[in-house]
């Protein structure tokens, strides 16, 4: 593995950058919890990762949601970066830690550690760009393999079709996106526009809700180690033949 030292430097810089970011975040979070010490409720942190081809508007979506800002200027994201925003769900304050990734990077460059520990994966595509829709399968597959979630069938994914303000240039119909979602186990689908702040708020709220629901269920499902393991091989075979996923 001694090849390509020069290229690795790039990777290292990415990881150290996100590491720094993370430490800083820990600190922030800590102070926050101190100042709200009077309240006994534990603050939940949900890690949300946005994936998708370059130029579909991942950074814009995140910026619109967190900062309520939009810029027409395109700037490629390098590595990964996050912003946080607190949302209230059923009188519970949840911190959404939204990780924006670089669409130009190859899938593997962020490493498995980045994907593992995500509470929700947001797949984004550009409704005016059919190729970005086609890549969704790759992004999803790559996420699943790298993150290795405990229960991949029910891991919360959300699909966002961005740039619906450009209706005249649409290349992917809402029906097509929806039927894709159906084949992936009824992933929720939202048509949004980061530019016009259309549906962005609602989509992220739903994302938070989904991830939260999943999280509480996960702790119920897997108190210590996965108990869904079937020990009876016959039972296993039956399930194979009658798989309805």
């Amino acid at each position, binding site marked *: *593995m*001694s*090849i*390509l030292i020069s*290229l690795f430097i790039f990777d290292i810089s990415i990881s150290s950058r996100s590491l720094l970011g993370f430490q800083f975040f*820990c*600190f922030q979070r*800590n*102070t926050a919890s*101190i*100042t709200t*010490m009077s309240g006994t409720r534990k603050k939940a942190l949900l890690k949300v990762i946005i994936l998708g081809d370059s130029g579909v508007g991942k950074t814009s979506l995140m910026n619109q949601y967190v900062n309520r800002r939009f810029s027409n200027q395109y700037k490629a994201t390098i590595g990964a970066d996050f912003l946080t925003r607190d949302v209230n769900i059923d009188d519970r304050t949840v911190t959404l830690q939204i990780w924006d990734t670089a669409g130009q990077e*190859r899938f*593997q*460059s962020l*490493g*498995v550690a980045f994907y593992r520990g995500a509470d929700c994966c947001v797949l984004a595509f550009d409704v005016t760009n*059919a190729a970005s829709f086609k890549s969704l*399968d*790759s992004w*999803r*597959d*790559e996420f*699943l*393999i*790298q993150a*290795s979630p*405990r*229960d*991949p*069938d029910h891991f919360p994914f959300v699909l966002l079709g961005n740039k619906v303000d450009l209706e005249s240039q649409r290349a992917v119909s809402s029906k*097509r996106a929806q039927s894709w979602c159906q084949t992936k186990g009824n992933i929720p689908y939202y048509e949004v526009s980061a530019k016009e702040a259309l549906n962005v708020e609602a989509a992220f709220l739903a994302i938070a809700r989904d991830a939260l629901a999943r999280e509480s269920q996960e702790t119920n499902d897997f108190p210590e*180690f*996965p108990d*869904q*393991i*079937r*020990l009876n091989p016959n039972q*296993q075979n039956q*399930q*194979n*033949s009658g*798989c*309805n*996923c």
Partner: protein
Amino acid sequence: MFDAYTPNEVALRLPVEVTCLAFHESKQTLLAGGQAGHLYAYSISANRRGFELTNICKTFHKKAVMELKVCQREDLLLCVSDGQLMAHRLSDPEYKVETLIHKIKKVQTFARFSPKTSGDLYVIVSSVKRLYLFKWGEKDGHKEFIEVALDYNPEFGDTPTHIKCVGEMVFFSARNQYYSMTMQKDKIAARTPPDDKSATSPIPEGWNGFVKSLVNFNCKPGIIPMIDRRRVAFVRNETVVTTDIWGNRPVNGFSDEYKFSEVPMQIVYDSPYLVGMLSKGRVEIRSIFDGQLVQTMSLPKAMTLCNGARGQVFVAATSDIWIMDTSQNLRKNVSHLIQEREFEMAIQLADNSNLFADEHKIEIKKKAALNLFNQKKFDESFALFGEIKTEVLTILRMFPELLPDGFQKVAGTVSDMPANDRMRALLALGNYLSEIRTEHAKHIDLYHRLRASGQAKKADTEEMEKLLLTLRVVDTTLLRCYIKVNTKPALVDSLIRLQSNACTFEDAKKILETEGRLRSLFILYESRKKHEMALDLLIEQSSRPDADPFFDDATQQIVEYLQSLGNSNLPLILKYAKWVLAKDLDAGVQIFTSDETEMARNLNRKTVVEFMKTECPEAMIPYLEHVIFKWEEPSSFFHETLLEYYVARVNSLFKDYVHAFPDAYSDENITRAGDEDGELGIIRKRLLRFLEISHSYSPQTVLLQLAPHAFFEERALILGRLKQHDQALALYVNTLKNIPAAEDYCRLYYNSNDETNSQVYLLLFRALVHPNQHHHPRLQVDPDSTPFGSFRDDVSETSTLANSTSSYQPDVNTAIKILAKYADKIDTVAALNMLPAKTPLRVVFSAINAVIQTTGRQASTRKMEKSVSQCAMSKKLERKNRAQATKIIVNFSSECVVCEKKIAVSAFVRYPDGRLAHLYCHNDSQTGIRT
């Protein structure tokens, strides 16, 4: 228990009492402060045996030295004596006083504070129930401690006695309580721009501290940061409790607690040991991992501990100093620990020291990882295996069920474990392998990029082949692993679909076949572009009642699959399309007419048509309709083929239809074209629409193909295309008796600018008035001169046929209605002339009325046009007259304004201002301007 440390003397029987120690690491020097204010420095002797006194400073202080701290980078030795905090020059043999903090006279204790966000040195000083913050900086030309505002909530009521800082956190004790203080730089103070222009003094720095009480205690305070473990320990009577570096206790209770045999006076952390100073000179050493007692030793009158280099602790008694060193017994201890299976400690000791070669360390870790594996701590085990980059195969050998036959079996594998543990092992293995495969795929991808840019070396290529080989094994095993672990079947499909998936196709196929995972098998075929296998599988499954629900809609899947293949796979598409077409015509046509992608649109249409001709003629019409109407194919080949199929279809349907309803077209029961029940009506409607819209078919062929004695609407349209309007209209009027259709026809073809097409309404009129007379003299066309000679025979044949059966009655009334309705589009005079002489006037009346009205309207329009023209004319004339009235005098003195020569008798021009010029000069000057 084992002898972790061996004590050696540094200095014995000193003349003064030692009060405190500090270690100067870069010089390997121990500094000892004395009761009388002396300072001793001991360095490792040149022959590396023990320490020797290298310096003694008797004038260091006048009173006892209470605390010493080395600040190597700033070259400072900080020291508390007589309630004063002073900074000495460290490199100075005399240890000259650099500066001292005047402000605080009763310094209790202090700690260095080095926040990560700045490189500056700060000290936090405790004095009389308060904490102060000072920054080492420059003031008035020399370095000294400058006070920095520190604002905190005074949660504590007593003087802090012990302070330690970890990053931005400050931990301290006051009376019987430990506190944490979160430090944050006052951003507002730093940001506010100086309003007054006194820019000479920059905005004072400020810090905020948030103090929070942690735990109480009832002994000598001790705060021990353990940075490598990211924890902080607090002495609480005989127990030592720990928090994380933010001061938070573990959620799940007191997991990291250490208990000493009695209340320690002081504890230092020397990874992986906690070294405690107990009463009567006893030193107790405990493991950081499990808190077990490792060693106790007794050093007479020992009182104080001080960290030396890693693995060294100095111990000071009233007049003796020892060093406790781990290095002497280290090898022995590590092997002992390995034997005892205390791998965590062994690894920590080996990592801390430079006595062990890397291979040796890896060996230890490998043993440790194996041990973890046998303890069923699978995740930890794989993490450790991963850390030392163990060959994947070594790990895989422990999972013989995942390996193909032919790999040698080893003992102690998961096969011997209970089923539940085996599952946990497989889950952990899956996580580990997915990480490994990601790493490998990443390197392979980088290599491909390198190669693409031409930078790859030969060594890289070899390396790459190795990586690929490993990835192949990993991916294949991962596949087996996912299949075995029943909670993750979804990942099987994702893994197969990955672009970088390196499973051998045959292996993967065999695995999936044995497991009966046909759905995954299909995905494998698809992602590896084994189209035939994929399609065969779909076909095979489509007929099985017990197939996986995934194959429920196999036909649709085949259609979609074929749609995605494109021109390069056209023979394959056609091969399977045949199957689909036989099963479901609509679905089959969809293969060629999908608009989802460009693939179907770009297929070679001629080949498709040829294919359909032989294999599935029924599909031709829907296919070509899509091609022509949706994709607007202009080539006449397709138009004619479609027409041919329309006509053939219509002909055959018509035959059946007439057979079923013999009187459908009788005079009493007229069925209009396209209104027939069933398919005939539908196809005829489409045919008519096509004839109307398309311009790319050759009419004469169609006329030949259409069955005689029927399809008059179609004929009429085709004749219209040939501008044979008289015949077309005769069909409408005489044969079909459908005047509205005739009007629609006229509306379609009428064009006032075309010599022939402008006559259509008149021709309709004539057809009504003289139904038995076909050729209007003005429209007479010589049959031989047209290229459509052949069809004319045919038409005349039908018309004579029609004529022979009956002679048509003129329908003057309808003709008059037409004339009235379209008076503006008919040559009215010609029309009226055609009327039979005996037509009653009252019948003609309405028409004449319309004609007169139209003529009147036309007359007034003309009148209007005339007046407008006249008006324009008179205006022009007036201008002309005005121009002619201008008098130009050219005499002998008249000169050209350009060449200034006489005009004389040459041609000339006159400018509007009256100047004259030769025509040539004018032209020249014009062209001159132009160039």
